[in-house]
């Protein structure tokens, strides 16, 4: 027995003996080499600062919400005289909290999340705290749902243009493919039944099994809500094909006028048929509406019991810190505060949006009519020398290097029309926004002269 083993052993060595990594580790499906992330790098190297670096790169590629931060700060600091963060228990309260590692999540926090989500939807849908599964961010929630709903080599249909992070979140470790549902400006990039069927057929022709449709509502990067009729059509489509519907509603609290947002939860609310309901899943996070991305709080809300149970167990890979849950639970269940916050946040975002759209209009640039989110979807197609993806990237490069503005090219969002760009406006002060607009004006003036 010994000798054969010895001989086996030597033949096992590969020539250079460098240990190999997995395909996941060496692939570039993480997408971090795309322009979307490259621009961030340029910003990191030369970040704009009002006083210290006024000619630096202004970051307009990061969808972060800083417009209502003061409201949070005031609330958290006011409600926390010494020791009361942990309730009257003080340090022992902290100890209990630090020990809590149940993947169900703190009940008080789940209740707070459910109540917050209901408020955002104006009470038009109810959320059961026991259907809420907590994850460390919406990124993790989307990936986890994909693991649960699809097997490797299956596909999810995703309308374009979509958030560049999906390439990583939905595909990297899961082995699942994204088949795009092509949308274009002829109908304001809304999803049409024809586009849905066509995407489904494309997958079938390639012998790929479609497991669901994943939409973002309000849409990133469009900055617009999905119409109620489209949602109903989508649900019908999913029922007919017997697939899932995932609605990433991470920007639901950032809709400028509450009445313009219809959540898929509202549609499901009036449906009794379990076989219809249990294909619907909602993703939410506090990163955008509350401007707390660093806290890493995301949730999966599912009408499907098996999905909830599985997600809960698998959330053990991506739990929300118990300290964070505790910190936010009382704030989110304070309905007076949240009502005020949601209202003021919407208002401020709307004003910002109007400022930027007006400013761009004056420079001769049109945007898609938007009503939500932290960004606008800008059309620079007329500036392209070549109406190709390369042409778009060339323009993007010029804007980054000459104007020192980092914006996101539509191609990184898989947009089928060239020339569109996503421009974020909520992660800076009003002054900075003015400076950015000024740079754009000057650029456009220079171009007109030639």
């Amino acid at each position, binding site marked *: 027995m010994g000798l054969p083993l010895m001989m086996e052993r030597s033949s096992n060595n590969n020539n250079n003996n460098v*240990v190999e990594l997995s395909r996941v580790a060496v692939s570039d499906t993480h997408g971090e080499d795309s322009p979307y992330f490259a621009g961030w790098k340029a910003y990191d190297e030369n970040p704009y600062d009002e006083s210290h670096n006024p000619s630096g790169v202004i970051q307009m590629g990061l969808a972060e919400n800083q417009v209502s931060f003061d409201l949070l700060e005031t609330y958290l600091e006011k409600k926390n005289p010494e020791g009361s963060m942990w309730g009257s228990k003080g340090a022992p309260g902290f100890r209990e909290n630090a020990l809590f590692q149940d993947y169900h999540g703190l009940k008080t926090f789940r209740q707070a999340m459910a109540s917050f989500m209901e408020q955002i939807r104006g009470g038009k849908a109810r959320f059961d705290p026991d259907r809420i599964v907590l994850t460390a961010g919406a990124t993790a929630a989307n990936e986890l749902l994909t693991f*649960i*709903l699809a097997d490797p080599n299956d596909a999810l249909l995703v309308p374009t243009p979509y958030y560049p992070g999906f390439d990583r979140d939905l595909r990297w470790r899961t082995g699942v493919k994204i088949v795009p549902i092509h949308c274009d400006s002829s109908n304001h990039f809304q999803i049409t039944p024809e586009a849905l069927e066509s995407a489904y057929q494309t997958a079938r022709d390639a012998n790929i099994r479609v497991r669901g449709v994943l939409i973002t509502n309000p849409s990133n990067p469009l900055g617009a809500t999905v119409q109620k009729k489209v949602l109903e059509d989508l649900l019908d489509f999913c029922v007919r094909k017997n697939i899932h519907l995932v609605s990433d509603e991470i920007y639901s609290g950032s809709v400028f006028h509450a009445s313009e947002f219809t959540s898929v939860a509202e549609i499901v609310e009036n449906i009794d048929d379990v*076989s219809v309901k249990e294909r619907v899943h909602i993703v939410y996070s506090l990163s955008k509406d509350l401007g707390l991305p660093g806290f890493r709080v995301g949730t999966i809300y599912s009408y499907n019991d098996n999905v909830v149970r599985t997600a809960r167990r698998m959330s053990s890979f991506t739990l929300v810190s118990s300290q964070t849950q505790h910190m936010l639970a009382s704030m989110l269940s304070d309905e007076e505060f949240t009502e005020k916050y949601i209202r003021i946040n919407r208002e401020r975002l709307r004003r910002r949006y109007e400022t930027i759209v007006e400013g761009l209009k004056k420079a001769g640039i049109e945007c898609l009519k938007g009503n939500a989110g932290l960004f606008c979807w800008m059309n620079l197609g007329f500036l392209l020398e070549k109406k190709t993806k390369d042409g778009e990237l060339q323009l993007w490069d010029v804007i980054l290097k000459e104007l020192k503005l980092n914006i996101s090219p539509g191609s990184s969002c898989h947009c089928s029309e060239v020339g569109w760009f996503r421009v974020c406006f909520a992660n800076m002060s009003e002054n900075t926004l003015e400076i950015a607009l000024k740079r754009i004006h000057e650029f456009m003036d220079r171009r007109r002269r030639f």
Partner: protein
Amino acid sequence: MTRTEPNRSRSSNSDSEKNSGNGGGGRTTAMRVIVPLQGVVQGRGGLFLGSVIPCAFFYFLQFYLKRNRKNDESDNSGEQNSSASSSSSPNSGLPDPTRSQSAGHLTELTGLPRSLSRILLSPRNSGGAVSVSGRVNCVLKGGDSSPYYVGQKRVEEDPYDELGNPDGVIQLGLSQNIKLSFDDWVLENAKEAISDGLSISGIASYEPSDGLLELKMAVAGFMSEATKNSVSFDPSQLVLTSGASSAIEILSFCLADSGNAFLVPTPCSPGYDGDVKWRTGVDIIHVPCRSADNFNMSMVVLDRAFYQAKKRGVRIRGIIISNPSNPMGSLLSRENLYALLDFARERNIHIISNEIFAGSVHGEEGEFVSMAEIVDTEENIDRERVHIVYDLSKDLSFPGLRSAAIYSFNESVLSASRKLTTLSPVSSPTQHLLISAISNPKNVQRLVKTNRQRLQSIYMELVKGLKELGIECTKSNGGFYCWADMRGLISSYSEKGEIELWNKLLNIGKINVIPGSCCHCIEPGWFRICFSNLSERDVPVVMNRIRKVCQTCKSQN
């Protein structure tokens, strides 16, 4: 069980088919089977039909079976991935009482019917239940009924409390460092961070998902302290993530492809099944250690397991060890670690060294040697195969805060891991809290020292008490567990006997312990008892409970 099912149904099915004359669906196929077979035998050219019809029969049989099987809503989807070898068992949720060595063979049988049913039941069934991925089955099956979850649930429903609920179930299953030196330390050091409520500006924004440099530096310091400073850990080789489960899963994704496997000496942590296998498609091949060897790893057995896997076409990508080990609490010797490194080098595989209990070494004998120390003087090529997992929560009693680390010498692994932490990052207020809590070296030293003393004293009390009851434990030098030999108490030397005893301990003794089968121990009768939750006062209570169970066992035997 699954092995016999198709046979039973098949014979009943064909019986009913033979008896019936006509009819739709499956019934007429019987006639078509019988005649062509006759044709084959009598050479009347029925060879073609004779092969095709039985295949069609089998095809329809599976359809029939699928329809008549109990409707498990999550069961509709097909197999996990086509590249998975037969050893990727569908029964691999957390603890699964099936410990038989032939589990691999069992899976091969079930593989075929499942793939057929996937073809037959196309998702075009509108109105039918929507299907989910194969993983769901893995996770939920065996989950709720496994001792691990059942025991946990009982503790949650009826938790012991010295004053409030003295008859409740005592938690000896899960490692929570409740009774350690938390109070003083918390009040003295983390008070500000805790009670001032944390100013949120500066911590609200997006931060590097693999952790703030400041926290990495603090963690590196803590890890060095645990090795008594024989290793200096470099913060830039650390990747922080939300828990040890996540760290192990990330490494599994980076080091192995779906269908590959890791070697894991057993008994091992019950958590590996989920952490390594659930989402990755990577399998675990257990390498059993025996009580005769004090549950130490045998290189010969390891070798054999590697060779057998290779013969089956399964590619081993690495070996996962825990040091201090879970559940035995033993410290791996330098010789052992060097031998492991040789083994890994010769086979060109990785080593994942799970050192989450490094800061909880409480025994006087033996020293904790980190894998980092072993490779310190090695060539780069060998350093790159070593990856260490560490968990702040174990040593700091902060399991809720979700903060663990991967330490690697392999730049590619670090790079991939960093990107993966976007999916499992540490929450920023928690990072800031931890920074303030562990940045002071003197405090860290004091905490580690006090932890060790407390653990040692409880451990010794517990072991003494168990000995008096005739229950021996292996020598544990680190971690939170006693590995107790209860073979004398089980009614039959089998897994059934072990589970019976576990049941008695839970329902009569009202203590939640983990049976060896959850740790994939090949010898029945061993139990993992976690003692970090106990204070000195609790030990006699536990002893009394166990004594009660011992008495019932003895009276039965």
